[in-house]
């Protein structure tokens, strides 16, 4: 008889093999899905790969697309590691863009070295405010953070709608138009890297943020407390950790990271405030953070994978002639295989003799 038994130590090779199998299985099932609707599987995948990594431009797009997702993913990592189930990344991304936009108005005309850190700080402050609010609702009023963050998401999105439509930030001119702000002045665009017209300096942020998160979580007393909070808050409380304060810090840090995603998206990509290009980034961040095993490095990898899919998606749609929604379907399918691989990696097969 054979059976599965948990491993004591991780086996790097086996883990890698598990995840490789997951990718293959995920793609295989996606291919089946494609075939089921009569698409040309080879052509679609070729287009996908070409769009994700087929050229420097494609790679740049992948990076740009991965940037907000990774940042929102890191926000997830920080919160979920402390077992604070914040679903508020979506609203915080919006808040980050809104705060950044406000900052852009306040700091207009400043030299770039002050302007960009300044507007990003404005954005992060908005996300932190949301995180702070959810933390207070939990600490003082016992409102579960899932509830408060879901509700706050709606509130923020409606607030943005009001600001752009009827409120002060709508596009000026004779008419109130589409829900969007006026274009930012060119000097407020995040500078481009390597002379590329799309690779903005903001793409460096996720890597910096991930490194910072990794160090904070595993090497600092705060990270120790965050991890402990996730495992056993009662023991921490007994040993002098102020739980409410830690919750507040974690929620604010998480809010700041998600908000950074919104702010970079505003100054690096969209260059005007509007909801369209922010929708779904927060939820994608949650998924990516979780696929990344709630680890900063894993989140970067998962985020790049998702960024690649998103960037390849356009090629696939244009060249492959398949419905746009194949990409979220592939993402969902691979996510499930990744989860299975995560389980598989922790087990090994043993023989037993027992009647």
């Amino acid at each position, binding site marked *: 008889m054979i059976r599965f038994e948990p491993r*004591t130590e991780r086996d790097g090779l086996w883990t890698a093999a598990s995840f490789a199998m997951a990718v293959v299985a995920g793609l295989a099932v996606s291919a089946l899905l494609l075939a089921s609707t009569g698409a040309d599987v080879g052509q679609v995948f070729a287009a996908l790969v070409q769009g994700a990594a087929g050229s420097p431009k494609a790679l740049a797009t992948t990076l740009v697309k991965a940037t907000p997702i990774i940042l929102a993913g890191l926000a997830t990592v920080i919160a979920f590691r402390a077992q604070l189930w914040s679903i508020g990344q979506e609203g915080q991304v919006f808040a980050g863009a809104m705060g950044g936009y406000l900052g852009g108005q306040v700091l207009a005309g400043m030299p770039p070295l002050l302007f960009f850190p300044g507007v990003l700080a404005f954005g992060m402050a908005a996300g932190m405010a949301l995180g702070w609010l959810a933390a207070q609702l939990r600490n003082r009023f016992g409102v579960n953070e899932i509830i408060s963050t879901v509700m706050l998401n709606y509130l923020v999105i409606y607030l943005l709608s009001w600001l752009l439509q009827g409120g002060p930030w709508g596009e000026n001119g004779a008419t109130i138009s589409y829900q969007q702000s006026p274009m930012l002045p060119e000097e407020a665009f995040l500078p481009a890297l390597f002379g590329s017209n799309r690779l903005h300096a903001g793409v460096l942020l996720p890597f910096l943020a991930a490194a910072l998160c990794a160090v904070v979580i595993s090497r600092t007393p705060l990270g120790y407390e965050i991890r402990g909070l996730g495992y056993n808050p*009662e*023991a*921490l*409380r*007994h040993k002098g950790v102020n739980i409410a304060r830690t919750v507040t810090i974690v929620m604010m840090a998480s809010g700041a990271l998600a908000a950074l995603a919104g702010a970079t998206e505003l100054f690096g990509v969209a260059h005007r405030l509007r909801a369209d290009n922010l929708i779904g980034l927060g939820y994608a961040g949650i998924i990516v953070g979780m696929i990344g095993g709630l680890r900063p490095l894993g989140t970067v990898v998962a985020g790049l994978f998702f960024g690649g899919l998103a960037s390849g998606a356009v090629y696939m749609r244009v060249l492959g002639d398949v419905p746009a929604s194949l990409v979220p379907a592939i993402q969902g399918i691979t996510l499930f295989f990744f989860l299975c691989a995560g389980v598989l990696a922790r087990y090994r097969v043993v023989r*037993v003799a*027992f009647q």
Partner: protein
Amino acid sequence: MSTALRVEGLTKRFAGVAANDDVDFDLRPGEIHCLFGENGAGKSTLSSCIFGFYRPDKGQIFVRDQPVHIASPIDAIRHGIGMVHQHFVLVPEFTVLENIIVGTQRSGWRLNAAEARQKLKAICDGYGLDIDFDAYVWELPVGRQQWVEILKALYLDAEILILDEPTAVLTPAESRILFNIMGKMCARGLSIILITHKLIEVMQSNRVTVLRKGKVVATLNTVETSPDELARLMVGRAVSFTITKPELKPGETVVAVKGLTAHGHWGEAVLKDVSFSVARHEILGIAGVAGNGQKELFEVLCGVRKAQAGSIWLMDEEIAGLTPRCLMDRGVGHIPDDRFREGLVSEFNVAENLVLGWQRSAKYRSGPLINSKAIAKLSRDMIAEYQIATRDEKVAAGKLSGGNAQKIIIAREFRHAAGLMLANQPTRGLDVGVIEYVQSQLLRKRTEGFAVILASEELSDLFGLADRIAVMFKGEIMGIVDPRNTTITEVGAMMAGRRQGTIQ
């Protein structure tokens, strides 16, 4: 039928480590057979394998001399095996009756509560047990909860009963009742496997099997052995049961509590007008049946619970209302009774647990980062000093046996505290070897000049260790006695609610 149950060559590994290694064991009809061994020796694992809860890697089980295949508890139950687990497997939100009948009904949509009630009543009457079937389990004191566990097994018509440390949470009086009932059970033909760390209880059994590191060391007829021999077999060295406590003069008062009153979650008073003081070189024992305010007293003293009234002076400072952090910084150490809930983070490794609460301390930091080198070094020192049985400091605390986990807490608190040590049930569930060790450490702190407050349900321990004993009942102190001129019976009476002085 020569044996009720027999186990041959049973081996069970956890992630490669043998918790049971080629164990042979047999249980005779109508006997009480003790399993005895250190924490982590493999007693619970063996029981769980017999019960089909764990799947052994090797071995054969015979029930009434027939080889059987036990793949799941359902097989065990079918063969008449019942088990009371070391840790309660109860649903606090359910009533007693619901806890007993859940999962036992095999047909019908509706709950057959009435039928079950009758059957239970018959069982209880047979053993002279009195229990309110409609009480919620969370309302019951732990002692009563243990009866619910036993009833669960009896309700399933167990003929072979495995009791894993049932007396760990019982008062001496309750334990006596349990032994009484076990006697009746054996008389009715039930056979019992009993796990306990208490030698007095082992001595009341028919036979005893000693396990060490997963292997059977010996199986003995109880009448042919002695506590000393058993302890020696178990630990591999002689264990001293007599506590030698040096005479010391109490020094200045360290902590003084006056009129302390605290409320529970529902506003009920859990501490009523509690007053006492403890001096340097002094151990104040707190006696009382669990649930009479000891836990709340410790919680107030270490700052995790707010007091409604009263004052607490630590040296020359009023500390009531200060946070745990402030108290820790003032030298208060605390060994909580629920080690895995309040004392440790199971997922953290030994090293991390050894600095729990001190993670921000400058000693363990270099700049803003945690100085893992310093912590690792400290950990290795402490593992050696306190003889914590672990592969190294990087093992997760949850993987250690209960006794060794307790040593982590003791090591940490002793290392960081200065002046006052609060110890709530520090030896509960530990094997005699570890108990001996913990007690010696408490005495060492006393010698060093600490004031120690020690709560224990083991009156013998208190009488051996404490300089004075305060007896608690329903949140009140019934009196503070000097163990040298008080008897255990007198304290027992106070634990049941008699005030000091009203005893003749």
